[in-house]
């Protein structure tokens, strides 16, 4: 058997992927599936007990097929992938039962050396974090050549030639000089391309990608995924994509497996699962995602509660405690029911849910109001504000260079409005948020809050302003002091700003906790006792404690799982409605921004390139960069995705140390002309409230 595999391997190894490689369709071939997982059970032994991380997982992947595994954090999707590679931590993980067959050969029970011969040779894996997944002290070249010299016993020179070919294949320019570079000299997107090159080095038959683009910007994400899809189609590589992003699934996957709390709860062809989801969790997940093609008027339907603790999961159906259609039968583990060809759902009421839901939902709550007042005086008026950071320089080193993180930005935010601020990482959106809060001092310009310029204010005068302007941070794990109780965390700002007499603080804390959907008894808990979503609610309650008028939300929902994210977005909208809050909502997720904002500003390399009402911007984007961003962001609907034109922007964000002349976007812009290089384009108002900084718009 093994000889046989080796023989086939040698044949394949010689042939490089080239343009004339035959196109393999997923349907072809009667041979066994590339990967067949059957009834897999994985446990983790921890100090607190046994965590059942994967329970009874079964699925198959055929040649040339792209299968997505979707689920929230802790659902067991990554663990199942590591089990295939047998790279689970040996001290705590146990594969209790099941079978993993690769081309018909059982992998469980192989020894370390036999597995080593398969890893990287026949099955490759791409990991989530391109920043940490490459060895910082070894060259890119060596890291790509390693599998070639080890598995295919290529000579140094042959491996080198192949490495150059691979880098070209994954779209890295100037591959020869890249070989001698180290990972820290490449951007995140480039590193992920290198990871893919390593994965493809030996022409594997199966590629497992674990959240391959989660850490990347949307334009880079689209480039990477297009590349993977193209390679899968051309070379017939079977691909397993693990992701929590339903848009990616809709755009790229042939089949979808949805996991919840260690179990597979729904599986089927992508079109079927998206069009006719059967399991209440899968339905809830789809409804909870903010979508680019839906505006503010549609309120997100959320799944209440949080996923169960896998140390002590509920009996029967794991989703039962959160499911509004639960019946007595759900106390038994539901079998997988085939509702149409190839589409299974593990639900006792599969097939009924759709009718049930129609009966219970009383139309969409359109009252999610668009009550922003475009008239009147701006509560926050940012006028020609800039922030330049000096880089380098110092003792005996010469003068510093300037990074223009925020460059002549003007924005007005009306009372009661949500202004969304989007852009890729490094565009300066977070810096702008910090300038508004005066956490950084602006290099130039004015920031007028309630009619007063903040820039010249002293520290103590700012304290007074901060009472009316608060912030919610991205990371609900590190932004709360672990040694303070929730009550102390929320009470502290009231105490500092002397908003309430000391005796009234506990009562007010209880009120705030209820306002953000928590319970008053949680005031005595510590942050680590709460889930991510609950912590983010605590962060919101803390911001509300001083009764602010403006809240800067810096990626406030980015770290949360889809179902929890929907809950927090709804909470923010509800609070705005109730308390008349004004939000500056900074995020990289276009769909979230689209959903929550009245108006949206698009930022690129320190400048605002387009500003319009949310509906207007997404329906009729005028700046080529905005158009590119929107094209790159996938919509969770395979039918729409398959018909959408896909113009994918190439290249990466240029270094802000050395920005391009004229329009900063021109090197990546499909419409760029000579004129674009000459002068920074003026911001023009195309129609009322829609401004663009582009001479071609």
């Amino acid at each position, binding site marked *: 058997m093994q000889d046989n595999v080796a023989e086939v391997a040698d044949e394949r190894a010689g042939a490089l992927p080239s343009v004339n490689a035959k196109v393999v369709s997923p349907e072809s071939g009667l041979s066994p599936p590339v990967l067949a997982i059957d009834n897999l059970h994985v446990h983790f032994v921890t100090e607190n007990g046994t965590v059942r991380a994967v329970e009874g997982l079964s699925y198959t992947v055929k040649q040339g097929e792209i299968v997505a595994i979707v689920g929230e954090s802790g659902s067991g999707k990554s663990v199942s992938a590591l089990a295939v*590679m047998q*790279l689970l931590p040996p*001290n705590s993980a146990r594969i209790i039962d099941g079978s993993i067959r690769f081309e018909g050969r059982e992998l469980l029970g192989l020894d*370390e050396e036999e597995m*080593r*011969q*398969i*890893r*990287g*040779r026949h099955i*490759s*894996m791409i*990991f989530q*974090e391109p920043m*940490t*997944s*490459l*060895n*910082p*002290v*070894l060259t890119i070249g060596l890291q790509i050549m*390693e*599998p070639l010299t*080890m*598995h295919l016993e290529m000579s140094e020179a042959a491996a080198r030639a192949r490495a150059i070919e691979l880098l070209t294949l994954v779209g890295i320019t100037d591959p020869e000089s890249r070989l001698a570079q*180290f990972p*820290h*000299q490449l951007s995140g997107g480039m590193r992920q391309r290198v*990871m893919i090159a*390593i994965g493809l*080095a030996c022409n594997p038959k199966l590629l497992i990608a674990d959240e391959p683009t989660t850490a990347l910007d949307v334009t880079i994400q689209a480039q990477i995924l297009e590349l993977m899809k193209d390679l899968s189609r051309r070379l017939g590589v079977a691909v397993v994509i693990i992701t929590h992003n339903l848009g990616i699934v809709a755009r790229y996957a042939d089949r979808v497996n949805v996991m919840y709390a260690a179990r597979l709860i729904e599986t089927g062809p992508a079109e079927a699962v998206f069009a006719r989801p059967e399991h209440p969790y899968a339905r809830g997940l789809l409804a909870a995602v903010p979508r680019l093609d839906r505006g503010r008027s549609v309120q997100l339907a959320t799944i209440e509660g949080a996923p169960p603790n896998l140390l002590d999961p509920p009996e029967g159906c794991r989703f039962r405690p959160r499911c509004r259609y639960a019946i007595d039968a759900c106390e038994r583990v539901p079998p997988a029911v085939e509702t149409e060809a190839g589409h299974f759902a593990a639900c006792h009421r599969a097939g009924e849910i759709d009718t049930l839901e129609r009966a219970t939902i009383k139309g969409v709550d359109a009252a999610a109001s668009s009550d922003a007042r475009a008239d009147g005086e701006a509560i926050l008026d940012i006028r020609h504000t800039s922030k330049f950071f000096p880089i380098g320089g110092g003792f*005996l080193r010469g003068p510093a260079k300037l990074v223009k993180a925020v460059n002549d930005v003007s924005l007005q935010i009306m009372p009661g409005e949500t202004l969304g601020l989007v852009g890729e990482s490094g565009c300066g959106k977070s810096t702008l948020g910090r300038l508004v809060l005066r956490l950084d001092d602006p290099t130039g310009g004015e920031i007028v809050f309630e009619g007063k310029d903040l820039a010249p204010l002293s520290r103590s005068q700012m304290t007074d302003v901060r009472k009316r302007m608060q912030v919610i941070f991205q990371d609900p794990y590190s932004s709360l002091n672990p040694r303070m109780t929730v009550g102390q965390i929320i009470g502290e700002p009231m105490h500092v700003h002397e908003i309430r007499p000391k005796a009234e603080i506990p009562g007010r804390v209880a009120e705030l906790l209820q306002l953000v959907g928590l319970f008053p008894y949680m005031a005595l808990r510590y942050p680590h006792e709460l889930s991510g979503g609950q912590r983010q609610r605590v962060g919101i309650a803390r911001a509300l404690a001083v009764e602010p008028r403006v809240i800067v939300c810096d990626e406030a929902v980015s770290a949360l799982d889809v179902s929890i994210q929907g809950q927090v977005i709804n909470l923010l909208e509800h609070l705005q409605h109730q308390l008349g809050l004004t939000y500056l909502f900074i995020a990289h997720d276009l769909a979230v921004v689209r959903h929550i904002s009245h108006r949206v500003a698009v930022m690129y390399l320190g400048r605002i390139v387009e500003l319009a009402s949310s509906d207007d911007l997404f329906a009729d984007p005028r700046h080529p960069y905005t158009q590119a961003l929107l094209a790159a962001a996938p919509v969770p609907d395979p039918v729409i995705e398959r018909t959408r034109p896909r113009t994918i922007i190439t290249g990466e964000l240029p270094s802000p140390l050395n920005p391009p002349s004229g329009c900063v976007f021109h090197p990546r812009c499909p419409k760029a002309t000579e004129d674009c290089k000459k002068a920074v384009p003026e911001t023009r108002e195309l129609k009322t409230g829609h401004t663009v900084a582009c001479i071609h718009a």
Partner: protein
Amino acid sequence: MIGYILRRLLLVIPTLIGVAVAVFFLIRVMPGDVVTVKMRADGIAVSEDAIIAERKRLGLDKSIAHQFGEYLWGLAHLDLGKSLWTGEKVVDEILLRFPVSLQIAIMATLIAVVIAIPLGTISAIYRDTWIDYTVRVIAVSGLAIPSFWLGMIIVLVLLGVFNWLPKIGYVSIFDNPMANLAALFWPALSVGYRYAAVATRMMRSALLEVMREDYIRTARAKGVFRRIVMRRHALRNAMLPVVTVIGLEFAFLIGGLVVTEQVFNINGIGKLFVDATTRGDFTLIQGLVLLIAVSFILVNLVIDLLYAWLDPRIRLS
């Protein structure tokens, strides 16, 4: 890179000036001075006049400010002055003892590196097995046993079992390598054990840390041979903190072997330091402190260069 080294060496000057100033004033806080100690040692009644005369001869009667000025003037000419006790040049006093201390420090470092790197690596690979436990017991013992006590045990064993002791008196390694190594190996071993214990523990924990890194998982997912994952991917990254520990220990050894030198009856820098302090020999103390400061600065420079060699992120930025 050369520019970097030159910049670092230039920074040595302000550091040394700071050290020189601090030590000058700190030692003058000590009660008594070299003259009283010397006179008392002679054991005879000394007249007040003789003490005053001796103070005058040594320049101790001048004001602190004046002495400080002279001291700085001397330093500017690279002149550390003369020992107040022996009247010999401070530089000569130090140079007489420095080779032996330096050699012990180097040998102890070699012993530590040879023991610690393989032992720490094995311990990390076989984590939580009997091999790991054995190594950890050996390492903890090294930390718990004082070097001088181990030195005494070594001397007793050499004498009691082999009825042999290294000859007293220093022979240069260039004159008679065998006699030199036979004499200095034992003190180097007794301090090297503790040194190795520190480095072993650092090696083990650094390696365990690195083994959890994503890039190690990537290497394994590529199907890289286990031993190459270890040697190429893990060890080099794990060496960074170990290099720091080894370097700082080395600098410490140059002046810090006070008791061990006593046990093996070696006339080294440690012993000189103790003598100079008990005698109130200010000029000699100042010279020794500067020597140790220079050692630390140079060792730190070497550590930083090793870092740059091991880690391209430092080298190329």
